[in-house]
């Protein structure tokens, strides 16, 4: 038993050291080097501090992330409350739909905004046609809107769990002692869900700060941290890997601090999870109930509208960047006329990555959940590091690490798979350890007691018992790998262009129709597996967050 755990732990630590910590160390190292000569310097940081552009970049990123967090909380908390305590028609469906934005690619939502409200957007041109001018959505407004609409489920899920974890008797006790309903909400309910709000909010902050795709689509020329790191590293004209390294270190520092605080509040949430009976739905007047229903459904529909818009627009004909009202499959024809390769690549890479992630993540999750030791504690910690590292930065580290030397991986498919696996590993670990926590440990002991070795028990008893949960995790990893952009855009090589890369280049260029078709394909690729197993997904997500 012990030996099995030790072997898994050591193997996982080695893997993470080679493909996560070593590349990150190289990024850190690059940030202290003089570009070209390789001497040690603090110059890269000094240059950032002196540069108005880079300070603006940091400022914009932090500002957008903070604003998105505030807005996500502003819509997420009421929505969670309504879902928990008000009898809303279609609640189960609403819950499923509310979790969708987390796994749908956010840059597609950003692109939808461009298609609708951009320079040549449908709504913009229509309104302009009838003489109503509308403001630009590029830059901060658009980015904040997209982050809010795609990330608010991070607030909803834990806060909903928090509201549901408040034992009915606790609230009844407070009421019985003479508290009015608002007083009880303020003194009993809010303190209990506060850690959940903070944990969810900080997750929004981290994701918004790291996100590459949304500012890449909506920032135009405004400086944004994630985009600038990419340009500094991979830009054709103004490449400066050392500066990219320094910005990366700053970004990681921000996300790491946020993550540590987030974990802290997540830990505090435990005190509220032993509710015996969920509190009753609030008795509301029909008017209030109707309002709650409209608001809840409104939020969720608004967050999904961009995706449906993209699906519809992809079926319309473009003349250059200008949309016409004629139906046609021309966009898809363009997308597939070049080659099926990108789509095939997307499907293949996502499949390999998903299987590999779960194969590696499940034993780690098992060991972390079952065999508490100092070593597995370390593994648990290192396994969470990818949360704090944006895809772009990880990809940069992987390139620096495996561009030369004994192990050359750049230019092939393996480096893409490695990046996906490392990025999705925390999720796989979390979800499988959550599943293991629900398994009675005496089942495994009974098997061992009856004469089956621990490793065989894991393979023939534990894994089958975890299977249904693991399938959910597998599909979620598959979806997010298929729509991965930030690491892919740095790492892809000519033979391994994916659908996300096609879409990115189409947006950068003038292929609006092509981009819309690629975006639609991405939505379908992610949404179909989700709908197939949506009930499992719901559970998974809430356990992982």
């Amino acid at each position, binding site marked *: *038993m012990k030996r099995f755990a030790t072997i898994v732990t050591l193997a996982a630590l080695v893997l993470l050291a080679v493909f996560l910590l070593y590349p990150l160390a190289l990024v850190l190292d690059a940030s202290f080097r003089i570009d070209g000569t390789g001497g040690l310097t603090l110059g890269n940081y000094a240059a950032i501090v002196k540069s108005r552009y880079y300070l603006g970049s940091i400022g914009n990123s932090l500002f957008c992330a903070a604003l998105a967090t505030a807005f996500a909380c502003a819509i997420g908390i009421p929505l969670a409350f309504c879902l928990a305590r008000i009898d809303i028609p279609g609640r189960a469906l609403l819950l499923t739909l509310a979790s969708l934005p987390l796994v749908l690619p956010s840059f597609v939502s950003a692109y939808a905004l461009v298609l609708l409200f951009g320079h040549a957007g449908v709504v913009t041109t229509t309104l302009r046609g009838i003489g109503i001018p509308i403001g630009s959505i590029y830059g901060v407004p658009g980015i904040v809107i997209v982050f809010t609409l795609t990330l608010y489920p991070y607030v909803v899920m834990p806060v909903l769990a928090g509201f549901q974890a408040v034992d009915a008797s606790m609230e009844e006790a407070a009421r019985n002692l003479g508290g009015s309903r608002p007083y009880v909400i303020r003194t009993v309910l809010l303190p209990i869900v506060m850690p959940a709000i903070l944990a969810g909010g900080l997750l929004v902050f981290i994701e918004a700060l790291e996100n590459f795709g949304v500012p890449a689509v909506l920032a135009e020329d405004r400086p944004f941290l994630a985009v600038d790191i990419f340009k500094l590293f991979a830009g054709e004209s103004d490449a400066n890997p050392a500066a990219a390294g320094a910005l990366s270190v700053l970004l990681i520092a921000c996300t790491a601090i946020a993550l540590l605080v987030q974990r802290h509040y997540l830990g505090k949430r435990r005190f509220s999870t032993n509710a015996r009976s969920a509190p009753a739905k609030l008795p509301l007047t029909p008017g209030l109930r109707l309002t709650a229903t409209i608001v809840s459904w409104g939020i969720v529909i608004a967050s999904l509208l961009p995706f449906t818009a993209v699906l519809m627009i992809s079926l319309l004909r473009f003349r250059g960047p200008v949309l016409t009202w004629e139906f046609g499959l021309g966009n898809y024809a363009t997308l597939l006329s070049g080659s099926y390769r990108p789509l095939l690549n997307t499907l293949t890479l996502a499949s390999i990555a998903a299987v590999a992630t779960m194969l590696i993540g499940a034993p780690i999750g098992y060991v972390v959940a079952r065999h508490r030791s100092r070593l597995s504690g370390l593994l648990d910690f290192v396994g969470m590091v990818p949360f704090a590292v944006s895809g772009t930065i990880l990809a940069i580290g992987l390139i620096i690490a495996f561009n030369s030397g004994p192990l050359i991986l750049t230019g092939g498919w393996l480096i893409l798979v490695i990046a996906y696996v490392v990025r999705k590993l925390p999720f796989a670990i979390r979800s499988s350890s959550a599943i293991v926590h629900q398994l*009675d440990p*005496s*089942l495994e*002991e*009974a*098997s*061992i*007691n*009856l*004469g*089956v*070795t*621990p490793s065989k*028990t894991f393979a023939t*008893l534990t894994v*089958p*018992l975890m299977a249904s949960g693991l399938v959910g995790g597998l599909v979620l990893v598959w979806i997010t790998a298929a729509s991965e952009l930030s690491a892919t855009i740095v790492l892809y090589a000519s033979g391994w262009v994916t659908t996300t890369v096609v879409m990115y280049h189409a947006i950068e260029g003038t292929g609006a129709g092509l981009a819309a078709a690629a975006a639609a394909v991405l939505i379908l690729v992610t949404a179909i597996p989700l709908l197939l197993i949506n009930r499992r997904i719901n559970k998974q997500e809430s356990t992982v967050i």
Partner: protein
Amino acid sequence: MTAIRIENLTRTFGAVRAVDDISLDIRHGELFTLLGPSGCGKTTLLRMIAGFVDVESGSICFDGRRIDALPAHRRDTGMVFQNYAIFPNHTVAENVAYGLRARKVPAAEIASRVDKALERVRLAGYGPRSPHQLSGGQLQRVAIARALVIEPAVLLFDEPLSNLDAQLRTEMRIEVRQLQQALGLTAIYVTHDQEEALAISDRIAVLRRGKIEQVDTPERIYRMPQTAFVAEFLGSTNMVPGIAGAFDGRNTPVAAAGTEFTVRGEVAAPGAPVLLSVRPEALRLRDGSGGSLVHARLALREFLGPVQRLHATLPDGTQIRISALGGQALDLLPGAPLSLAYDPAQITAYPAP
């Protein structure tokens, strides 16, 4: 049939000495119970024998062969878990066959042995069922069949009946006992239910804070508890502190609770503080005739059907409990004086802690 010898077994968790220098000899075919309050180390000791908790120091031998270094899956013990631990993804028959498969028993033999084991636990025909179609008591029988069928060197039970309701518990404990005797297996049984321990054990070890207080047959454990802890743990005895008087060659008077008790034998030097254990059934309601007597006042009467329990107050206000038969007519009201007769041999004195 296996004899188990445990020598100087110790296990600590941080500052807690869960099992503290325990030595035990368990005989062939014996049902040996580990009894004690929550947290006294029963489960830890049992799991050390099963191989799920590492031995820190000391040794465990089955028939003279040391097994404490063997991995759990090679110890040949059959464990019955508190929460049954029936594999939900296997049928009842597959559950029972699990250990036989691990031992590479031929398929034909497995089938017949599984059928026989299910018959033994009165579940013939339940083989193809899935575990979620069974009740708690049936699941526990499957767990027992699964442990029996491999004919293990030792059967281990960790509070196997504590998840069942009271009625089923009393039925099942008899079944467990009969199966164990019929198969002649050595068994170690963990419980904190003293009645269960007394009812089915050959011998009982009473544990306290990781140490053994007393190992004896149920009768001797109950009648002759060697420590105040054992006396108090077995049967809700009345513990009354007092001061020993002068030994008269047969009995010792003990001044306690504002009155005097007579205790058989020389219990302590005169003037020494002692703790008396007065079992509720050692006191009988009397109307003035013979034996040693103590006077009390009725405080409360609990009528429990076959028996009734009287709560009485001794002269200094100490509360004691007295058992009486349910049929015994009583028209006493609270406050009424009671004369309680007892046999001095039935009162035990311990040195005061």
